[in-house]
């Protein structure tokens, strides 16, 4: 296995004095797709904010290629890790092309023009996410599925080795959900992108993730292959649902059909 592009050591993070996350340890290798799951309020979004450095850690380290975010500095750090937030609100009608170009920010100087390289990278990211034909449209006029692909294109244009996503398929229909995950899997295979995605959809996670990290009450309670995490027992213990777990013969991955809520133990 390659050396980790992202490693988290004994991370404690939160707002004010009381930490929400405790004792977080995590490694992410190039070309690895890791899903983060857990019930509401377990600290998944907090984890994303602290991994990108928006929320500074109370203690512990977040290392990208062996360097902390502080050592890297903000601009350089943004060349290592990109983030797709839960929701992107467009207040101003940027053209799709110009919006994706904003992903090149960490590579551009104070006065430098868009280079041919920038243009090439932006076009490639847009073709990959199939938004090239939308390039003259205003971002404010896109549908939900188009919008999320455009946001992904901007993240790809940032050319980082690690991509963090906070519920990237929130509010998308089935086809667009699959589309987003397929794109991420493809980027992982072709570019060795390391993906860490928070999701509520265990079945999508099972289908695409190499590992699933289960978070509850601010701690990582399990970290393993989908075959182990997607189990009736863990579903009941941490999500408070009774489920039937079956094996999908097509993908050879487990999936859960949850049919009743119980009280979590």
């Amino acid at each position, binding site marked *: 296995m390659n050396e980790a592009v992202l490693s988290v050591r004994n991370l404690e993070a939160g707002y004010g004095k009381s930490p929400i996350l405790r004792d977080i340890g995590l490694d992410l290798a190039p070309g690895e797709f890791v899903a983060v799951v857990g019930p509401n309020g377990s600290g998944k979004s907090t984890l994303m904010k602290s991994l990108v450095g928006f929320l500074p850690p109370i203690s512990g380290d977040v290392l990208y290629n062996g360097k902390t975010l502080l050592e890297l500095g903000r601009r350089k750090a943004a060349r290592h890790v990109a983030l797709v937030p839960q929701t992107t609100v467009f*207040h101003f009608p940027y053209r799709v092309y110009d919006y994706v170009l904003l992903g090149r920010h960490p590579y551009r100087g104070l006065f430098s023009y868009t280079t041919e390289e920038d243009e090439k990278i932006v076009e490639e990211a847009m073709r990959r996410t199939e938004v090239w034909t939308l390039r003259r449209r205003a971002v404010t006029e896109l549908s939900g599925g188009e919008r999320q692909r455009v946001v992904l294109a901007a993240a790809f244009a940032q050319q980082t080795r690690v991509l963090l996503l906070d519920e990237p398929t929130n509010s998308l229909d089935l086809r667009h959900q699959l589309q987003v995950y397929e794109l991420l899997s493809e980027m992982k295979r072709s570019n060795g992108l390391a993906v860490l995605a928070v999701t509520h959809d265990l079945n999508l996670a099972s289908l695409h993730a190499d590992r699933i990290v289960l978070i509850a009450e601010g701690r990582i309670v399990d970290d393993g292959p989908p075959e182990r995490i997607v189990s009736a027992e863990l579903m009941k213990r941490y999500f408070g649902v009774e489920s039937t777990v079956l094996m999908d013969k097509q993908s050879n991955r487990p999936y859960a059909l949850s049919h009743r809520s119980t009280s979590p133990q």
Partner: protein
Amino acid sequence: MTLEHSTKTWIGVAVIAVLSVLAVLLSPLIGASSLDLGAALANLHDISGSKDASILFVTRLPRTVLAAITGSALAMAGVVFQALLRNPLATPYTLGVSSGGAVGAVLAIKLGLDVSFMGFSTIPVFSLVGSAGTIALVYVLARSDNRLPTSVLLLAGVAVSFFYSALILFAHYLADFSENHKMLRWMMGGLDIVGFDSVISLLPLWIFGLLWLVMRARDLDQLAFGGLVAHSRGVDVKRSQKSLYIASSLMVSSVVCVAGPIGFVGLIVPHSVRFLLGPSHVPLLVASGFAGAGFLVLCDAAARTLLAPMELPIGILTAMIGGPFFVGLLFREKKKHVYED
């Protein structure tokens, strides 16, 4: 495609710049009294001795330059505030900078601190102190973990503005007739200055603000999507927000202390330019600077001539244009959102 697009955008910027410069050059020739440009230029060496030269160089040119500086500062600050607050309806006055300036000015008038010092009136100084105090107060109120959360910033600004409105009314209540007239006249805004002294005094802050904002315009493109996104794209959010807020507010304070709280320029101009050129902040900011200058210079020419020989306070004119514009904007937004919730 991008080159074509961005070339088009910059051609748009250039056209706006040329039109605005033309407005600035031609506006001094218009006015209530007739002006012989040849005679004015011929008497450059003896300005006070020639009627034409003194009209041009002592009254019209200084106020045109003041209008241009004021217009550009307000328009650029409008662009910055709208991006920082992620609200297209924000103005340079939303966070109370002008109310602070007004409190400084009306208190100075009421307390009789309006003295002439080396030929300068001291009111602008008190107004500037009021604005600067407000910038600091709103900043301290809104700051948390060294960041400026948009919603808190907005609430802090509005709360401080309301408090200041009460202070201003109180000053009015205590003031006598002539003080009241002075206060009211200050609040209406005015560009009627004599000579270049006050223009020169606000140049340093204007130039500093101008350069700083243009240098940081790229950050605005990122901050318009919120702190988290901007941070993840490599922007030092704390530093960027703080410096943009302070630089644009100081720029506004400096023009408000000389010209009074001239309204709506910071709303009309950024919106019109955004409509023409799109929201990318480098061209938007530069073009808004020019357009703001041109717009206010034209408004000033109109204010000087419409009711000649009387003069219309410029703040009233911009508000008369701005009010309907604002309502139009609201209606456009309303149509977009009416079926959303």
